[in-house]
């Protein structure tokens, strides 16, 4: 029993990271009806920005975290929307999806060529050691990951559901034309979602990099898992991305422990296929209908 609890908690910590990244998929989908194939690299890059600050410019960690986050949100929140999405969306969602694939390669290769191809240590803000929970030892690292990710997602949910701006964002996501008729500043609301996506990606990056180490290729794993999580949970629901992330994280950990480590990466894909077959809108997603 103790082993199962440990595995579930480890899976929960991994899943919380996937959830943060998966929310980015849903946010971009809701506002631009496209898939950001650079989402994994969005989680990889902020840690690299911070390491450039500390290693290249000798900044203290706290300052590098602030500057790195600000730069990332500016470039890949504001800049992503203004320079890529706004320019490409009129050409249709498919060209925009291709553009995000190109962006993914640029981010990955840029991180490799201008920083390092080697993995780097990323400092952890979690205390060392373990917490005794229900008779099992749970690392503080996992506790911090789960705690921060849940707090961030909770705050996002509160913001979206209980503030005026949040409700305007929801209205924009549901129907931008009607929202505009109602006087909602649609363009600004869409921009907010991109800024929030960049902020969540930065947070995921800072949480996961002490465990995964900071490396240009980290986006491959995170992007794929988050994509699966978003589909499993429901691509058009933030709530779905959250549960999808947690589910994929736990399934991955359980598969590695009880099925076979050799086939662990196949198990989430099997889950994905099963969901697509039996509930195409995802576990928590809603059916999207279009009038023709």
């Amino acid at each position: 029993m103790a082993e199962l609890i440990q595995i579930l908690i480890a899976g929960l910590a991994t899943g919380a990271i996937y959830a943060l990244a998966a929310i980015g998929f849903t946010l971009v989908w809701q506002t631009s009806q496209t898939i950001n194939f650079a989402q994994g690299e969005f989680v990889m890059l902020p840690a690299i920005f911070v390491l450039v600050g500390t290693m290249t410019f000798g900044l203290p960690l706290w300052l590098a975290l602030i500057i790195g986050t600000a730069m990332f949100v500016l470039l890949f929140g504001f800049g992503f929307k203004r320079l890529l999405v706004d320019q490409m969306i009129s050409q249709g969602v498919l060209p925009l999806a291709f553009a995000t694939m190109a962006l993914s390669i640029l981010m990955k290769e840029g991180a490799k060529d201008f920083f390092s191809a080697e993995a780097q240590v990323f400092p952890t803000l979690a205390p060392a050691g373990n917490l005794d929970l229900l008779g099992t030892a749970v690392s503080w690292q996992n506790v911090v990951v789960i705690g921060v990710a849940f707090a961030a997602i909770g705050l996002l949910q509160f913001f979206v559901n209980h503030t005026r701006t949040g409700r305007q964002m929801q209205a924009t996501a549901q129907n931008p034309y009607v929202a505009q008729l109602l006087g909602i500043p649609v363009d600004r609301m869409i921009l907010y979602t991109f800024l929030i996506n960049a902020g969540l990606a930065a947070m995921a990056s800072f949480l996961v990099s002490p465990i995964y180490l900071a490396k240009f290729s980290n986006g491959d794993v995170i992007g794929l898992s988050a994509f699966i999580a978003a589909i499993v949970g429901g691509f058009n629901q933030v709530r779905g991305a959250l549960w999808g992330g947690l589910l994929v994280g736990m399934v991955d950990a359980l598969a590695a422990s009880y099925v076979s480590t050799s086939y662990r990466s196949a198990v989430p894909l099997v889950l994905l296929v099963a969901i697509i077959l039996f509930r195409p809108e995802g576990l928590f997603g809603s059916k999207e209908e279009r009038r023709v």
Partner: protein
Amino acid sequence: MKKWLMGLGLAAALVAPASAQQTVKLIDVAELSGAGATAGTNWRNGIDLAVQHINARGGILGRQIQITHYDSQTNPGATRAAVQRAIDEDTYAVLGPVFSGPIGASMQIAQRAEIAQFVGGEAANLTRQGNQFLFRTSLSQAAAMPKIAAYLKDTVKATKIAVIFVNNDFGKGGRDAIIPELTSRGMQVVADVSTEQGQTDFAADAIRIRNSGADAVFVYLNEDESARFLRAARQQGITAPLVGETTLLGQKVIELAGDAANGARGHVGLSIDAPVPAFQEFGRQFRERFGSTPDHNGLKGYMAVFMIKWATEKMGRFDKKGVAETLRGATITPAMEPGILITTRIEPNGDIDRESFLGEVINGRQVINVTLPMINPTARPGG
């Protein structure tokens, strides 16, 4: 007579610049990105340092080395293409790659071209295929695993072993080599955990090993994965000794794993912390040039270039095929070629024999405790 002298002078003037510009081309195919980037970067830097040293001392038989590096991306297909390109571009010998999988995928290309290939891989099967042009720069798993098994039994006093390995040619080769060695010494394998190359999350693997009841863990993963596993093992409270082969105690792993590396121990083929002054001097010069501490791959890359130099100078001419013929069965001592750093015997099948070490990570540093002898120390120097 005067005209003859003038003619000779003119000919010399025309020939002299051409001779001065003559170079020997070496192409290195290494893992400069992808899962093997840490190993490949160290290997490349070791090669660059060797080239710098050789060129500063006049080159090989008076020719300066012109070195080119191609990125294999740790991808077998890209490695094959890069090795073929190196041969098409008339490389004198092929350096690299480091990972056993890409070596296995590319070694027949150099073999067909009858060009010596110097690799960093440890998989035992690489030198069992009768390739007369393949040369290791590290000990084979077949040589290293009996030493580790003996260490686990006699020094660690372990009876139940958990094995964790990376599911590629390197890892599977090591796993297949160590398990018979463990069982033949009466030890029981209580967990046999396969992991993926490039795997990021080792929490579930660590939990599984912790609950296996093992009193020692044999870790056989690549650099980044070793560091991630060490961190996960400490996080999950594994207290059993973590024992590995060379990589686990490598400088980059220690750097990436931080405090989690402390206590890791095992067999080390090459190390700048070994009680060999030439290794330590290499480490000092490497740090001075690249600003980082080299691991065993840096030493391997450095020695590979000096193996080529030694063979060529022994032949007294540039002969691609002759490099391989000269090296097989040779024993090179530092007295014969200082760049070889330590007495190295090259077996007829391309394996390496030399002294190796047992070490432990203490306070973030690799500490060498024991020097193990060569397997065949009586071989005749010079080959």
